[in-house]
């Protein structure tokens, strides 16, 4: 690979890792999350925090700088498979959000997460199809990408490092992510800007 391509990739991955957190529930690694707003809003998958939501304790966010902070669940939506968490801190590096509606089949995407509890690993792939409605009217970003458990709740980003989805599940050999446009709507209604 030419040197510029490798350094581009490193730069994009580096920034994306800054926006990605690890989630721990009852002391165990559970998945990943994305820093959505600098004032402490974290987005993740509903199924990653499922149990912790009910107990409302034991949920921790591990920041890229290794700080561990307790997190509270502000909103939990099983249908969208999204959860909004708050951590008490400011000045976090929020993710740049891309337009999931403009994804083109074949364009590069990257997923960052904590598969099997390992620290921020990246996988690359391409968009499989333009976003379309799937089962039960849900819209998914579909990617030809090898996700692992632990990637759930983490970011799916384009070649510019903009988050276009939250990794939700694996369907056959496809990776499915909740589109960023859906996440934006969810965050705005759950935690309007002050």
């Amino acid at each position, binding site marked *: 690979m*030419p040197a*510029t*391509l490798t350094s*581009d*990739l490193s*730069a*994009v991955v580096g920034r994306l890792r800054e926006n990605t957190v690890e989630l721990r529930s009852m002391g165990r690694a559970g998945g990943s999350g994305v820093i959505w707003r600098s004032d402490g809003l974290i987005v993740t998958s509903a199924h990653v925090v499922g149990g912790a939501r009910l107990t409302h304790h034991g949920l921790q966010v591990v920041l890229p700088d290794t700080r561990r902070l307790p997190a509270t669940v502000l909103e939990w939506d099983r249908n969208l498979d999204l959860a909004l968490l708050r951590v008490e801190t400011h000045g976090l590096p929020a993710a740049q959000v891309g337009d999931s509606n403009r994804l*083109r*089949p*074949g*364009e*590069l995407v990257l997923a960052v997460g904590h598969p099997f509890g390992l620290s921020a690993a990246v996988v690359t*792939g*391409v*968009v*499989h*199809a333009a976003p379309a409605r799937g089962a039960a009217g849900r819209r998914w970003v579909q990617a*030809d990408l090898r996700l692992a458990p632990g990637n759930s709740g983490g970011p799916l980003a*384009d*070649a*510019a490092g903009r988050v276009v989805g939250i990794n939700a599940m694996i369907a*056959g*050999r*496809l990776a499915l992510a909740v589109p960023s446009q859906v996440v934006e709507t969810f965050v705005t209604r759950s935690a309007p800007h002050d």
Partner: protein
Amino acid sequence: MQTLLSLSNDLASAVERAARVVVAVHARPRLPSTGVHWRPGIVVTAEHTVRVEEEIRVVWPDGRATPARLAARDPATDLAVLRIDDTDRPVAEIGDSAELKIGNLVLAVGYGPRASWGVVSAVGDATGHGGDVNRLLRVDLVLYPGFSGGPLVDASGKVAGLVTSGLSRQLDLAVPASTVARIVDEVLTTGRVSRGYVGLGLQPVVLPEALKRVAPGSASRGVIVVSIEGDGPAARAGLMLGDVLLALEGTPLRVPGDVQAALAGRRVGSAVTVSLIRAGAPLDVAVTLGERPSRKR
């Protein structure tokens, strides 16, 4: 930043370019396969996905459907050639499949369009015979349901081959564009695909020690004749039940499919030497290839 983005844009553009000539092929129950509008009025697809011979439909990217007629099948390359009346549509821009090298980035495009990416992982056919005629490409990418028959696309958006899961149980392969072109030419000029044919039913066998010792090249495997087509080329050449075939024109035979692979490109009427073991002794027999009985359209 620019280079990763420009690669991403190139790949998306390659898919867009190829997608213009990608059609859905409805020639079997349930799941349609993919096909490529290769020349005006000619669609190629994977032969194993054509399970009906009547009422085949081809659907264009804009959703318009058109009826298609099966012109010819070639199981040896897993290609089927369909004729359509809709000639006023974009045709595939063909890339030079001979230029594809191991490690080259490639995409597979299914009707939709849907895409997957990967690299060329090997060149030369799956059974290791190599040679120009059977130069299949092994590709490291996912063939999603319905992808067989669709194009293998290079990074510039040109069609370098046809992908299929039907040539091997374990491997996803691509038939290079040069082979597809040759098959299409043959169908357009003669109306069918002519395949050298021997007329044998075969089973794979592992050679016992005694036979391994007399086998040329100390082969340890072969294919045993379990049936012979009456008056077929093998019968006329004097092959017998129980003959253990070891090689055809020097190409080792380990499974029955190796015979078809070794016959690829050989003309009807040409003679091939079959090395075999009969009654414990090695023997070479010349077989004159006949024409595989096939339906003409």
